[in-house]
């Protein structure tokens, strides 16, 4: 009854091809943005802002990046974390060589370094596809991780082998380093994520996105239609790695505050792959849903036994969490292989005819 497009007439092509063609959707996204910009900081809870929302947004950005490659272009990658690492280390090197330049500029610029590395490792994608490509991207994962450990120049010859985020200011406000407040960091992350999501959404809905999807659906047919495969696939690798790189830089600079190479290990890559498969391949909203489920679910599960009053050891809870996540992955895949984004679409369809389904 509430969610219905009756009476909303589209009089131009622009309106018809809009991303949110229905008024209710536009109100919904405005409400979500209002909650993100006003509601979350209003909780004043360090736990919610710093341990839940900031990482959730950062993971969502990485998930969007991988979704562009895997969901939209159909190239399976297991090297996501390594590309995030390239972003983080590039940002660290840039800001230690040029400390006076605005850190936000370097966060974005580090994405270009990740993109360059991504293109390099994407080159084999013209000849190989499917699981073979996935294993080829593992080469990127392990080789880059090795570089992060064995090339001391990357972490400024620190004895600990870790990178530590220096303090940087933006317009007089401290935004990185240990003295930055959780709210400031959250706002910076939120703004970058919102801007880049908007950009990605426009990218995948336009000509380039259609080229990617044509390659995904059948690359030979796409080639016959005049799409040049190598530039298209490499562009997907570049854009995807750019997003991953920025999210890696954000992760180290605005969430962890310091990192070792092991942050960008293979398990991180798998986590992000989970997010997009559970959330929905080839869906922007799915990237966010998947990130929410995979990242927030284990946190929430940790509080379930406590809430029920069960006296369990923390290690037992952790093992149970692993089991529950494993079972949930299988259950969700059986219930809806297309991911949570499809569930959301079905729910919207149900809402449209509610309360008089035909």
């Amino acid at each position, binding site marked *: 009854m509430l969610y219905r497009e009756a009476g909303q007439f589209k009089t131009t092509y622009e309106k018809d091809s809009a991303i949110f063609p229905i008024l209710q959707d536009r109100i919904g996204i405005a409400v979500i943005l209002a909650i993100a910009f006003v509601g979350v900081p209003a909780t004043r809870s360090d736990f919610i802002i710093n341990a839940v929302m900031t990482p959730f947004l950062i993971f969502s950005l990485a998930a969007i990046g991988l979704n562009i490659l895997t969901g939209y272009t159909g190239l*399976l990658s297991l090297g996501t974390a390594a590309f995030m690492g390239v972003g983080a280390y590039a940002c660290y090197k840039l800001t230690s060589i040029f400390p006076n330049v605005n850190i936000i500029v370097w966060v974005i610029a580090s994405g270009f370094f990740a993109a360059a590395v991504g293109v390099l490792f994407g080159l*084999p994608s013209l*000849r*190989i596809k*499917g*699981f*073979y490509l996935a*294993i*080829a991207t*593992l*080469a990127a*994962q*392990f*080789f880059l*991780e*090795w570089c992060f*450990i*064995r090339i001391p120049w990357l972490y400024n010859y620190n004895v600990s082998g870790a990178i530590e985020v220096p303090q940087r200011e933006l317009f007089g406000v401290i935004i990185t380093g240990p003295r930055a407040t959780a709210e400031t960091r959250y706002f910076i992350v939120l703004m970058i994520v919102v801007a880049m999501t908007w950009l990605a959404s426009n990218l995948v809905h336009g000509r380039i996105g259609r080229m990617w999807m044509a390659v995904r659906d*059948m690359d*030979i*047919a796409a080639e*016959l239609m005049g799409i040049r495969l190598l530039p298209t696939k490499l562009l997907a690798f570049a854009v995807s790695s750019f997003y991953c790189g920025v999210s890696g830089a954000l992760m180290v600079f605005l969430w962890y505050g310091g990192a070792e190479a092991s942050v960008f290990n*293979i398990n991180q890559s*798998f986590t992000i*792959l*989970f997010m997009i*498969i559970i959330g929905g*391949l080839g869906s922007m909203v799915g990237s966010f849903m998947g990130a929410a489920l995979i990242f927030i679910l284990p946190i929430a599960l940790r509080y379930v036994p406590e809430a029920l009053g069960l006296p369990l050891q923390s*290690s*037992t809870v952790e*093992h*149970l*969490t*692993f*089991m*529950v*996540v*494993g*079972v*949930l*992955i*299988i259950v969700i*895949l*059986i219930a809806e*292989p297309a991911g949570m984004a499809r569930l959301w679409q079905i729910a919207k369809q149900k809402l449209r005819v509610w309360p008089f389904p035909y």
Partner: protein
Amino acid sequence: MHLLYQILIDPFVQMGSAPDLLAQTLWEGLVSGMLYALIALGFVLIFKASGVFNFAQGIMVVFAALTLVGIYEAGVPAFIALALAIAVMFLLAFVVERAVLRPLVGQPDIILFMATFGITYFLIGFGELVFGGDPKVMITEPLFLPKGAITYHALGGMVQLQKLDIAAAVIASLMVAGLAVFFSKTRIGRALRAVADSHEAALSVGISLEQIWVIVWFAAGLVALVTGVFWGARSDVSFALEVIALKALPVLILGGFTSIPGAIVGGLIIGLGEKIVEFYWGPLVGGGTDAWFAYVIALVFLLFRPQGLFGEKIIERV
């Protein structure tokens, strides 16, 4: 010039001047290559018969070994523990087929691949919950596995061969031979090959896919158990082995996803290659090359032969 000498000439001079070290390195490479090949074999068995890229194979190795040690530590005699571990692997195959594969029949490959991730997570949690997260010591003596080493004085030095490694090589060869006979001579083996060829055609001549899948997953579980015993005996039995199991993936690329001889040859090439490179070229770049060497070799290899050494040629039709 000095650098070129170090890269191109010096390692070979070292090999020539100490042939005993070279022989020792080759042997180590062969042994670890054999273990990679065993894990890859589990992958190939399942991929051939059901088209599922079973990511859980690595964790099945750990889980099988943990089950064996866990049951033994509970006070059960070694061979009964072995039988029980085999029974657990059968149960696992049965449950996986019922709860995961059957509801997901006909889904895209990536969804099935993802489901095996779910199995991986479940097995990690379950294994740690039941058997504890601490590394365990693999039982060798109660299973009559030999200990100690044979030392040869040859090549102007000495070469040490661990008896355990020799036993592993013998048992692995026997197992592969057994599998080969099973595949080519028995009724079930022929049915397995029929399923690998075409699901629909196999169904139409009355082969039960469900049964075949249970058998294949059980066979992969047995391979995992054998791998787990020998790998666990070389180091400890712990979930850290899982990362090493990822090494089986480049082996698969070299050998091709559907070829058993490919898995074995690929495993040996990777094992030999990474040991030799790490020993002779590793020091030039600060060591640790065995973390990525296998993958880079596989990547280079893929550029020239996308279907692997023995894989079937990929023919694409529009």
